[in-house]
């Protein structure tokens, strides 16, 4: 975790909607096409990379989100040490995958902001400015989608029914946070 000040420093509690930033969370984007890549990542992380589109797997310590047929986001389930920006998992992946050109490992810990949202009004709020159809998504635990909210690219992970992780690029997080707050007051 590098030294930065998050633009989101508050927890918001509206009627049927609670939101706050989850930080610091380790986040990696891994890319690879070969079957060997998928099995090796599986062994190293003790987690099965989801190959079904728009899904995720949650392990004991980390979660893997499907982003594309050859791209996944790996993030820690718990908060990590604030004063460290090397992670054993990342080192393992770099040594065993990156260095032999089996795939690419990118640390996006500080590139993405994770907003945790809880409550029954999450999808009402998103739907104010999002083209994605949440009908099936909200019932399916583990569902993942990339889409746009208020023209901002986001990754949405349905962790539990009515509990969502919203991942957004850090430079957009302040803007999205204001928009979410503004919308939440009206639902």
């Amino acid at each position, binding site marked *: 975790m590098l030294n930065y000040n998050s633009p989101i420093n508050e927890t918001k509690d509206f009627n049927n909607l609670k939101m706050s930033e989850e930080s610091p969370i380790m986040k990696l984007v891994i890319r690879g096409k070969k079957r060997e890549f998928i099995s090796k990542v599986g062994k190293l992380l003790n987690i099965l990379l989801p190959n079904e*589109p728009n899904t995720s797997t949650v392990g004991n310590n980390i979660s893997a989100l499907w*982003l594309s047929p050859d*791209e996944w986001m790996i993030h820690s389930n718990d908060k990590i040490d604030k004063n460290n920006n090397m992670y054993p998992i990342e080192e393992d992946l770099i040594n065993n995958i990156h260095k032999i050109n089996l795939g690419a490992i990118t640390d996006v810990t500080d590139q993405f902001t994770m907003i945790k949202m809880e409550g029954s009004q999450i999808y009402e709020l998103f739907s104010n400015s999002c*083209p994605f159809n949440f009908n099936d998504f909200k019932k399916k635990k583990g569902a993942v989608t990339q*889409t746009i909210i208020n023209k901002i690219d986001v990754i949405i992970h349905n962790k539990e029914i009515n509990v969502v992780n919203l991942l957004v690029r850090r430079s957009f997080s302040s803007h999205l946070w204001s928009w979410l707050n503004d919308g939440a007051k009206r639902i």
Partner: protein
Amino acid sequence: MFIINCPYCGEREQSEFKAGGEAHIVRPKQPTELSDDEWAEYLFMRKNIKGVQFERWVHIHGCRKWFNMVRDTSNDQIHAVYKMGEKPPVK
């Protein structure tokens, strides 16, 4: 506004996508042997027909993958969606 069936993510709204022009344009094997006119033809000249057209699209706000689409430009009806490298479906 219309729905596009991304070959990787499934049905999504058009605003998640970007159009990338005409599909299946083959780069000439010997560019040096082409005349300026032929080279310009390859580089710049694109069809713009009213009717069924073969196009490239990218799911820019989703999986960020390119794919091909057969679309009727007059009414936005999509006849087929297929992955890059795959042969276009016969009409």
